């Protein structure tokens, strides 16, 4: 579904993405992991068209997305830090996005589970970080998109909300949607993801099915498997 080839991006002198290539298919749930500042968010933002790459191609269902916008109808994006117009209420934000998307096929499950209806009159500027995250999550899921891109979805959510969100992610994945998650909390991803992409300093170190990774490292926990891989590869990584 998503085909990224030889993507390069520089912010000034800082080379954030170095020849990144990723392919993904329907029904996969991919975890994008890696240390802070390794280019995860930049990669996601390039796909969404928020960052313009210097070179390389990004295809979505065989069509390039560079300079396009309609493909975003099929994507739900939950940003790491949701930034919304301060003087709008939650209700207005939902109304506005709905007006832009012109979609009547709404999936209000998260919207209801997070009790957003009761908060609809609140201004975005008065919300706590966690509530803003809930709004972002509900907004990403409500239009029933084919691809879900979640940037640190559970950061800032309370355990209850985070559990609701995880259940929803599993449910959507089982419907055959492509889910892309970035996270630092590897323990949270354990029962969610089917594939894992590890990024380091703008490069993709590996892209493997979770089962293969677990077999190779002979660990049954994702967090342990990754730290084992990191230990064995840490020397060449540090040499750079």
């Amino acid at each position, binding site marked *: 579904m998503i085909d990224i080839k030889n993507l390069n991006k520089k*912010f000034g002198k800082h080379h954030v993405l170095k020849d990144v290539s990723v392919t993904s298919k329907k029904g996969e749930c991919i975890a994008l992991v890696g240390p802070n500042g390794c280019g995860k968010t930049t990669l996601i*933002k390039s796909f*969404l*068209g*928020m*960052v*313009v790459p210097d070179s390389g191609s990004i295809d979505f269902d065989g069509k390039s997305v560079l300079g396009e*916008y*309609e*493909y*975003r*109808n099929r*994507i739900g*994006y939950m*940003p790491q830090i*949701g*930034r*919304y*117009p*301060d*003087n*709008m209420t939650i209700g207005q*934000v939902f109304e*506005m*996005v709905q*007006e*832009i*998307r012109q979609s009547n096929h709404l999936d209000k499950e998260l919207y209801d589970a997070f009790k957003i209806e009761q908060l609809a009159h609140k201004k975005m500027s008065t919300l706590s970080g966690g509530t803003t995250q809930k709004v972002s999550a509900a907004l990403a899921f409500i239009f029933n998109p084919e691809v879900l891109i979640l940037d640190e979805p559970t950061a800032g959510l309370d355990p209850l909300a985070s559990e609701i969100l995880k259940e929803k992610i599993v449910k959507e994945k089982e419907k055959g949607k492509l889910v892309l998650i970035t996270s630092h909390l590897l323990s949270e991803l354990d029962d969610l993801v089917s594939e894992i992409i590890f990024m380091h300093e703008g490069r993709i170190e590996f892209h493997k099915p979770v089962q293969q990774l677990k077999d190779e490292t002979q660990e049954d926990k994702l967090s342990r498997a990754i730290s084992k891989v990191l230990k064995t590869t840490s020397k060449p990584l540090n040499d750079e």
Partner: protein
Amino acid sequence: MNKIIKIIFLDILKSKIIIAYTLMLAILSWSSFVLEDNETKGVLTILNVILFTVPLVSVLFSTIYVYNSSEFVEMLLSQPVKRKKIWIGLFSGLSLSLVLAFLIGSGIPLLVYSPDKVGVMMIVMGSLISVIFASLACLGSIMTRDKAKGIGIAIMLWLYFALIFDGIVLFLLFQLSEYPIENAMVGITTLNPIDLARIQILLELDVSAMMGYTGAVFKKVLGTSSGLMISFALLCLWFVVPFWISLKKFIKKDL
């Protein structure tokens, strides 16, 4: 595109600053007509007020609004909206509301007291100046991510066009008074939209005789109907070009 313009337009109309601006223009315009004993004097007073305050408010308000809507722009970008449309929507929404504020604040008293060519000319020029400075604000604010720098650029733009430019022109006039520079003066004037608007209105008011020989040259070049068309086209260029450059930059910007 209409959706985004509508959202931004309604958002700006709700802001207290644009209402205060409308009220201020209304008070200034009505009082200058009431205080001056004849209409021409009233128009001249308003002219100076308009050419001073309208650019200042337009450029500052637009700059601050563009910076404050960065969240809004970011949110729209993850939705199926064309990048071009977001920026065009922002500029159109700003221009529309600034022009509307000007029409309500100054347009009504002008039409009441001076319902002739001069009044209409003033309204057209005031609206154009609003749009031109909104466009310059778009260009200034896309240059830098730093809001404080952006506002600095906006104030410098206004200072340059409203004060410094005239200072330079006066300086040149005195230094080169030995030479026949009248035609060159017309050329230099086109470099400043505020001067262009001022001269166009002064010509309409028939006070150009007070400007001496230069005034006569202005009258000859800009006073004709083709001159009017040219200066109108130049004023349009003054908002099309800066906005077009800012649009090109916005399309390539990383958010």
